[in-house]
C-alpha cells in the first residue's frame, strides 16, 4: 500500500466536499478497494471513509418499494429481507464469504460495477433507481460497461430504491475460483413487465436480455426460454473459466432456472 490520508466524515455533504479535493476516493466496505491498494494498483492521496455516515445505512420498506442505504452490508440485506424480498436476500447472501458479506456494501458494489458482480443484476433486473447525493439515476442509465457507471468522480451513492417484484429470482453459476458470477441471471415480474438482467457474461457488463423478456411476457415459463437462441457468443466474455459459447449457453440455462425458481 502507498501512504494516504484518511478522513471519516459524518455527513454526505462533508464526504462529497472531501472527495472534491484531488485524488480522493470513497471507502465503503473496502472489500474491493483495500485489496487494490494492497497490490499497489491504486494510489489515492486520501480515503474518505463512508462508514461514519448514518444516513447511508439501513433498509426502509415503503409502498411497493424497498430502499437500501448504500452503506448497508450484504449480510444485513441477506438477513433483513429474507422474508420480504427473498430474491434480493438470497442474492446478497450468496456474495463472497461471511467476512466479505459483513463488510462489503451494496453501494460499493454498484459504484465498482465489476462485470461479474451480483448486485448489478438485481438493480437492472428490477429496474431499480440509484439515488445519489445529487440525483436519481435509473438502472438502465446507470451501468455503462465494465467498471464504468454514470457516477461523476465526486458523486456518492446514498441508496438504491427497488420496486418489489411480484416474483423474482436470481440464478447464479459460480466462477469456480472467485465464485463471482460466471453467469448470473436475475428475472423479475413486475405488473405485466418481465425483466431479465444478466451479469458475468457480457464483455459490456450487465445487460438486459430483451428476447427473453419478450418471450417471458408472452409466456412466463422455462419452456418459453428453451425455445430461444442464446445471446450471441461473440459478445460474451471468453476466458479460462469459459468461452463465449459456454457463457451464452449458461445465460439461457440460468434464465430458465431463475424463471422456474420464480414459481
Amino acid at each position, binding site marked *: 500500500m*502507498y501512504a494516504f490520508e484518511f478522513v471519516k466524515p459524518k455527513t454526505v455533504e462533508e464526504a462529497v466536499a472531501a472527495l472534491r479535493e484531488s485524488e480522493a476516493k470513497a471507502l465503503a466496505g473496502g472489500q474491493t478497494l483495500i485489496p487494490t491498494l494492497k*497490490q499497489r494498483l491504486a494510489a489515492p492521496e486520501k480515503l474518505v471513509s463512508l462508514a461514519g455516515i448514518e444516513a447511508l445505512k439501513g433498509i426502509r420498506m415503503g409502498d411497493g418499494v424497498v430502499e437500501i442505504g448504500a452503506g448497508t452490508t450484504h449480510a444485513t440485506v441477506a438477513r433483513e429481507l429474507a422474508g420480504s424480498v427473498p430474491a434480493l436476500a438470497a442474492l446478497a447472501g450468496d456474495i463472497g464469504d461471511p467476512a466479505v458479506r459483513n463488510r462489503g456494501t451494496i453501494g460499493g458494489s454498484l459504484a465498482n460495477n465489476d462485470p461479474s458482480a451480483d448486485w448489478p443484476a438485481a438493480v437492472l433486473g428490477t429496474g431499480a433507481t440509484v439515488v445519489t447525493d445529487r440525483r436519481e439515476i435509473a438502472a438502465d442509465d446507470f451501468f455503462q460497461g465494465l467498471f464504468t457507471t454514470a457516477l461523476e468522480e465526486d458523486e456518492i451513492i446514498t441508496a438504491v430504491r427497488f420496486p418489489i417484484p411480484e416474483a423474482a429470482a436470481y440464478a447464479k453459476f459460480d466462477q*469456480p*475460483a*472467485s465464485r463471482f458470477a460466471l453467469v448470473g441471471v436475475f428475472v423479475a415480474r413486475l405488473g405485466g413487465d418481465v425483466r431479465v438482467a444478466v451479469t458475468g457474461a457480457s464483455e459490456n457488463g450487465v445487460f438486459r436480455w430483451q428476447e427473453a423478456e419478450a418471450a417471458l411476457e408472452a409466456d412466463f415459463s422455462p419452456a418459453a426460454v428453451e425455445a430461444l437462441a442464446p445471446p450471441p457468443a461473440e459478445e460474451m466474455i471468453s476466458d*479460462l473459466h469459459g468461452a463465449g459459447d*459456454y457463457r451464452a449457453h*449458461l445465460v439461457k440455462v440460468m434464465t430458465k432456472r431463475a424463471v422456474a425458481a420464480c414459481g
Partner: protein
Amino acid sequence: MPKDHGIGAPIRRREDLRFLTGSGRYTDDINLPGQAYVRFLRSDVAHGRIKRLDTSAAAAMDGVIRVFTARDFENVGGLPCGWQITSRDGNPMAEPKHPIMAEGKVRHVGEIIAAVIAETPGQAQDAVEAIEVEIEELPAVIDMAAALEEGAPKVHDDLPSNLCFDWGLVEENREKVDEAIRNAPHVVSLELVNQRLAPNAMEPRVAIGAYDKATDEHTLYTTSQNPHVIRLLMGAFVLGIPEHKLRVVAPDVGGGFGSKIFHYAEEAFCTYAAKVVGRPVKWTSSRSEAFMSDAQGRDHVTKIELALDEEGHFLALRTHTLANMGAYLSTFAPAVPTWLHGTLMAGTYRTPLIYVNVKAVFTNTVPVDAYRGAGRPEATFQLERVIDKAARELGMDPVEIRRKNFINPDQFPYETPVALVYDTGNYHATLEKLEELADFGGFEARRQESAARGRLRGLGVNCYIEACGIAPSNLVGQLGARAGLYDSATVRVNPTGSITVHTGVHSHGQSHETTFPQVIAEMIGIPEDQIEIVHGDTANSPMGMGTYGSRSIAVGGSAMVRATEKIIAKAKKIAAHLLEASEGDIELKDGKFTVKGTDREVAWADVTLAAYVPHNYPLDELEPGLEETSFYDPANFTFPSGAYACEVEVDPETGKVEVCSFVAVDDFGNVINPMVVDGQVHGGLAQGIGQALLEQCVYDENGQLVTASYMDYAMPRADDLPSFTVDHSCQTPCTHNPLGVKGCGEAGAIGSPPTIVNAVIDALQRGGIRVDHIDMPLTPARVWSAIRAAS
C-alpha cells in the same frame, strides 16, 4: 473400545491447542532486534535479456540500506540440484546454472532481478519500484512439444536444446515391449495431461537471515520441511559456509506439500545479505509472489498404451511422457518424473512388460518439483485411466479387470518390471472392503434417482499403489540421488524419567508431536505427556533428511524406535544392578522393570534417576546418563496401497460435477494414530479432488501466469467435497521396518484424481454420451464442451 494410549490410540493432536489459539510460532512471528526487510524486483516477462539495470534512484530512497543485483553474487554458487538423471544415451542431464538472481537473462515470470533491503517493508517496496530495468523481450517457450522442436527459442543459450534429459525404464526392455504391443490382440491408448498445480500451503514462505559477528555464525529461519538439507545445500554449494557456522531453524510450518523441501534463492539471499548489511534480513512472501516463486507441481503430457489379451489380462504397457522442468532445475525436480514416477507404472498389477520413457523439458515457466505425491499421482493417473478405458473397450467391468490382474497375496515379495520389489500387500482385501463400504449394489438405484432429477450419475474406482520412505541410500545413490535418505533421532531421557526426542524429520501438519510419543509410550509404558518431540532446528537435532514422501514414521519413526531400544537395553542393565538380578531376567512393562518370576520391581523413573545420580550404579561397566542416537537407513521403500471409489453427479446442462460420495480404503500397514491418519487422508483427498475438478496453473503464450491469484486459481473449498468414508482396517504391515508402518501422507492425493475422472467418464457413458477422456481439471466448461462435442 479403542485404546486410549500408545500405538493405535486415536488421541487428540497436542499441536492443536497452540495452533487454534494463535500461539503457534511460525517464521513470520519471529522478529530479531535490528531486523531489516527485503523486497525483490521480479521479472514481469517470461523470457528476455536484461539491457539495463539502474538501481541508483532506488539506493538513494528513504530508508534504503542496500540494493543487490546479480553482480553482488558473482562469488556465490547457483542453487544446486539434488538428483542427477542419466539419459538413455548415457549422458548426464543438462544442468544449467540456477543463479540467485537473473544473470543477464530472465527465464520466467517471477525470477528475481534485484533486491532492496530497507528499514521497513514499505520502503523496500517503494525502492523496488524505483529500480529502472530495461528488458529486451525474447520469444518464450511455454508448450513442451514446441520447446523440443528444431529451432525453438532456447531457455538456456548455452545448452544444445531445451531437452533436460531423455530417460528410459527399463531401456533393455524397450524392444520387447514394442513387440508385445505390436502383437497383442487389444491395445488401448490414451493421451492425457496431468496439469500443473500451485502448491498453495496456507503459510507463505518466509526467510530471515542473521549473522553474529562475534562468533562468525549464520542463522537462517525458514519455512522448510527439512532444515538439515537446507543447511547442507546452502552451506556447502551456494554460500560456502561450513555446517558448524550455520544454523537453520524451521519452527512451526504451516503446510508444505513438497513446496518447502527445496532450497530457494530467497533463503540464500537473506543469509548472505545479513552478513553484508550487518543486520538480520527478513523476507515474507506475499500470496502473489508465492504463485510465481514457489516451485509448482505435476505438468506432464503423456501417451500411454496398454496391451491386453482376449480375456483382459495385461500383456504390456508403454508410456511416453513430457515432463516440464520450468526454467531451472529445482532441488529434486529430475527425480519426480523418473524414479518417483516410472517405477510406479506396474501399479498393483502383474503386467509383465513395461517401458517408460520420459523427456524432461525446459520452458519459460516457474520451476516444477515435487508436490504431494510427486510422480506417483502422475503414474497412478495414467495407469488407472487407461485401465478404465480398456475395460470399456473390452466390455469388462472396471472392478473385475483390476481384480483379474492384481498381484496376488501369495506373490510377495513381488519384483516388478520397473525396478521395485513390493514387500507386501493384499489388493484383493482392500478392494473387497471397498465393495462393501461403497455399496456398489445400491448404485443403480441411486443412478435412477439422479436421472429423475436430470443428473447423470457415475461410479469411479481406482486401485493405487505408492512407494514411500524412499530408500535405501546406497541404491538411491546409484539412481542419481546426491543425498542419503536415512533419518535420525536422539532420545534423551531426563533424570526424572521424562523424555525429549530430537528427530531429524519435520512436522508441518503431520502431527509428529502427537504420534511419535505414542510409540515410545507403548515401548516403555509411560504416559504420552512425559514425552516431548523436538524438531526443526539443526542446532538441536541430529542430521536428518526431513519430511516428504510419507517418510516420517517409516524412516524417522524407525530411527526413534532403534534409539529407544538402545535406551531400554541400557536401562535394563541399570535395573538389573538396582534389583541385584541378572540382566536377562529383567522385563519392562507399564513403566516398571521387574525380575521375571518375582515381585521385585523398580520404577522407570528410579532407573532414569540412577543413570544421572549414579550413587548406586555399575560405573565400572556402564557410563552414566541415558541418551541414545540412532540413524536408520531403510532396507526398501514401503508400499501403501488402496482401493478408492466415488460417485459423482454431472449436470449435463452446465457440465458441473458434484462429488456425492467418496470411499477410501487404504492399507497403510500398522497405524499409530487412526484419527491422525484419517486427517491425513482427508487432506490428501481434498487436494486430489482439487486437482481433478478445480486447480490449474495456466500460462498464456507469452509466459504470463494467468492464474496468479485466487480470483483465477480455484482451490477446493469445504463445500466442494462430500463427507469422506475412510477405512484403514486392511493392514499388511511393512516387513522391513520395526513398526510395520508404511506412511499415509500422500495416498489421498494420489488415489483420488483418477477415481473422480473415472466416475465422470462413467456418468457420461452411462448417459449415452461417448466421451473417453477429459483432461483435468474437469471444470464445468470443459465437461460441457466434451458433452457438446460428443452429441
